[in-house]
């Protein structure tokens, strides 16, 4: 059974998670007075109440958007971490539009989200253009862009949107017409969840069922092959960057309109970087990213509940995250068993 590549990957994921949890347990035994209780809280508490499950989903939405945006770039073998800056700056754009008065509560969020997406896409074109035209290292440019966008966003907020009655970084309150409605009572799960699902399906269809997706995947797998086949890397790099920025922009907007009543990020939110993690854990597959985002949110919510109800600090969840990432990203972890299974099976005779 382990001989099958897909089964093997799944088993590897489960074993990684189990090992990470085991390690967490060890840590809990050292630092907690009530290790078993804390462990149980972390693992099972999110399931016990609708409200907690709601927390998981709310938390998952921005992570998944950031993951999707980054996965597209990674698929094309572009190591671009610019989703972070785009999340921040598009948040500012969202605040700018959401604080305007508009009468229609359907048009208002729709315009906000689309404009935010377009701005995100255009911003992403900058490192994309330099990559395509001059083969600049996109990691460097995207990280620089993050710093620039943060500074620029902060300036715009302070200069034009700062609420006079609130200290620190804060925009005026969003108009009620702009807020995304809640779809499941007793939780804060908002329409953004539906937007996420639609986006995921769209990305999946684009990647696996269109010409563009085919060209993106081939370029990512072998750039020389793509060039040889006549695919235009210049155009592809621009398109992929735009799409990634667009998804990042939507994600940022959806998060703000769904969860907050004003813009209050005084630092980069960290969502973009977590997005890179989601992309990696989800193997750059849209549905994989969703699953990874769900798992991560579940763990974080569990850790949060544990921190509130026991003597263990929330940071413990970082241990689990780190260990899972370590094992899942390892090419050699459990390889031996995979190979042994292959030998037992006698291997495939290709000739």
């Amino acid at each position, binding site marked *: 059974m382990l*001989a099958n590549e897909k089964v093997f990957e799944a088993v590897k994921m489960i074993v990684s998670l189990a090992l990470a949890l085991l390690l967490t347990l060890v840590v809990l035994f050292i630092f907690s007075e009530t290790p078993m209780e804390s462990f149980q809280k972390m693992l099972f508490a999110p399931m016990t109440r609708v409200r907690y499950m709601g927390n998981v989903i709310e938390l998952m939405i921005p992570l998944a958007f950031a993951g999707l945006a980054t996965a597209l770039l990674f698929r094309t073998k572009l190591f671009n971490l610019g989703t972070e800056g785009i999340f921040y700056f598009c948040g500012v754009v969202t605040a700018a539009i959401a604080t305007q008065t508009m009468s229609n509560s359907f048009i208002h969020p729709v315009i906000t989200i689309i404009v935010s997406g377009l701005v995100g896409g255009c911003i992403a074109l900058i490192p994309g253009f330099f990559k395509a035209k001059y083969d600049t290292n996109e990691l460097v440019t995207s990280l620089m862009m993050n710093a620039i966008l943060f500074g620029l966003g902060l300036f715009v907020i302070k200069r034009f949107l700062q609420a006079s009655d609130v200290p620190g970084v804060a925009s005026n309150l969003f108009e009620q017409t702009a807020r995304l409605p809640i779809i499941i009572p007793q939780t804060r799960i908002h329409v953004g969840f539906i937007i996420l699902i639609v986006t995921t399906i769209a990305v999946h*269809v684009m990647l696996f*069922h*269109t*010409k563009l997706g*085919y*060209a993106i*995947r*081939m370029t990512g*797998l*072998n750039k*020389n*092959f*793509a*060039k*040889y*086949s*006549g*695919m*235009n890397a210049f155009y592809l790099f621009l398109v992929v960057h735009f799409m990634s920025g667009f998804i990042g922009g939507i994600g940022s907007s959806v998060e703000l309109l769904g969860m907050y009543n004003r813009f209050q990020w005084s630092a980069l939110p960290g969502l973009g970087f977590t997005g890179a993690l989601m992309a990696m854990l989800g193997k750059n597959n849209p549905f994989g990213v969703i699953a990874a985002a769900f798992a991560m949110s579940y763990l974080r919510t569990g850790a949060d509940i544990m921190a509130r109800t026991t003597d263990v600090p929330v940071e413990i969840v970082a241990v689990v995250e780190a260990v899972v990432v370590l094992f899942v990203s390892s090419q050699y972890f459990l*390889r031996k068993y*995979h*190979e042994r299974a*292959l*030998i037992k*099976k*006698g*291997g*495939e*005779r*290709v*000739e």
Partner: protein
Amino acid sequence: MNDYILQLTDITKIYSNGVVANRNINVDFKKGEIHSVVGENGAGKSTLMKMIFGIESPSSGQIIHKGKEVAFSGSMEAILSGIGMVHQHFMLIDDFTVAQNIVLGMEPKQKKVFLDKKAAIKVTKELAQKYNFKLDVTKKVSGLTVGAKQKVEILKTLYRDAEVIILDEPTAVLTPQETEALFVNLKQFKEMGHTIIFISHKLNEVKQISDRITIMQNGESRGTFNNEDITMEQMTELIVGRKVSLFYDDLKELKPERSKAFEVRNLDLKVQDVPVLKDISFAIREGEILGIAGVQENGQSELVQILSGLLPAQGGSWKIFEEDITKYSVDQKRHAGLAYIPEDRMKEGVAKGANVSENLISTFFDRQDLNGKILMNQKGVSSLADSMIKMFSIKTKNAKSKIESLSGGNIQKVVVAREVNTQPKVMIAEQPTRGIDIGSAEFIHKKLIEMRNSNIAILLVSADLNEVMEVSDRLLVMYEGEIVAHIENIKDITEKELGLYMLGVKRQDEESLKGAYLC
């Protein structure tokens, strides 16, 4: 003690992607013999050698070295036990001198710390003399010919006191003259007590030099024979299990009155002021195969890359019939009717990680029959892929298998199938059968001739003399970026004579060369 220096018992190797490279192999190597291991590419020769040399470890079975079982965990251990290997692709540092390359990693030292350059030169000079290699050890490797580089590689193993020397396809890159010189050296090594393991799929060479021959097929050993006990015909049968036709003349239809389909004029290329291509002009008629022979690295691959659009041209022009395609992008060139089988199938020919059907459509994936308004027509793609797999007898579990699970020959068939399917007017085939099994190679040759018969112009670039001589209608020879010979009728020329052109000893006068562009 017995006189076997190396014994392999029941060796099996299965790679992590599930491919069985070797199955229950038993071979013994005697001290002081030249032992050839022959088989088609993909028969598992290289894998077997990698295990002896410690680069790979066997999944099961034993390697016994001088009577003791060994399990090398890396090539360093193999080297220390007196096993040396000369790889197909040289592992030399171009900016170092010959002497520096030879002593690299085991340098003679001054005061235990500093490299003793004088001693290095002295030791390597003596070594070269001892083994009758004519080499200037103070020269930089970058300036050497391929044959000389190979000598450096061999000296490297001898410097490390190799008793067993593994040579992986050593003659693949050599001219006939260089090959002969190598054989003289190998025989000398044998006299001196070294064991030579000679990997090849060129049977005449194997027959010429070996004491014993082990034949491999499909990852298994078909037995070890004394050279005098087996004929070439018997070997061929064991290797492929059937006779192969090596002459394709009967398949070629005669084509009178053909117009020029592809014309290249005055192509030039300089890389860092060094001329790589000098005033290349030639033409191909429709329904004709023009071969370009020559030792590798004489400008052929640059020529092909420029023609196909992967390298920018610096001077010259080329056209398909009357359409000038010089300035076209790769995509535009393809749409104008140019197809291209690249030299390196893993680098350009396929995308590793993608499946067979995805690799079969990359050069025409935007074609109408494969696409709907927005979505790709998956049914169309898979039925096309299935029919291509069938037509080219590509051995794969199905169209959804990963391309890397196929053997080299079948991967190459995928590339050829795709390029044939673009329905080109002109096909550039660069080393179309390099490193693949005889069966697949024959299949691909027949396909090329089939295309020729349906009026496609074909440019066949190959370092394999047999290939260009068997398949082409006319022949050009390239040497140092120039066309030095145009051979109108291949039957009029011998391999020896071609070798002289390839090495730059002879060249035709301008008048004869004009024939290349059909004036």
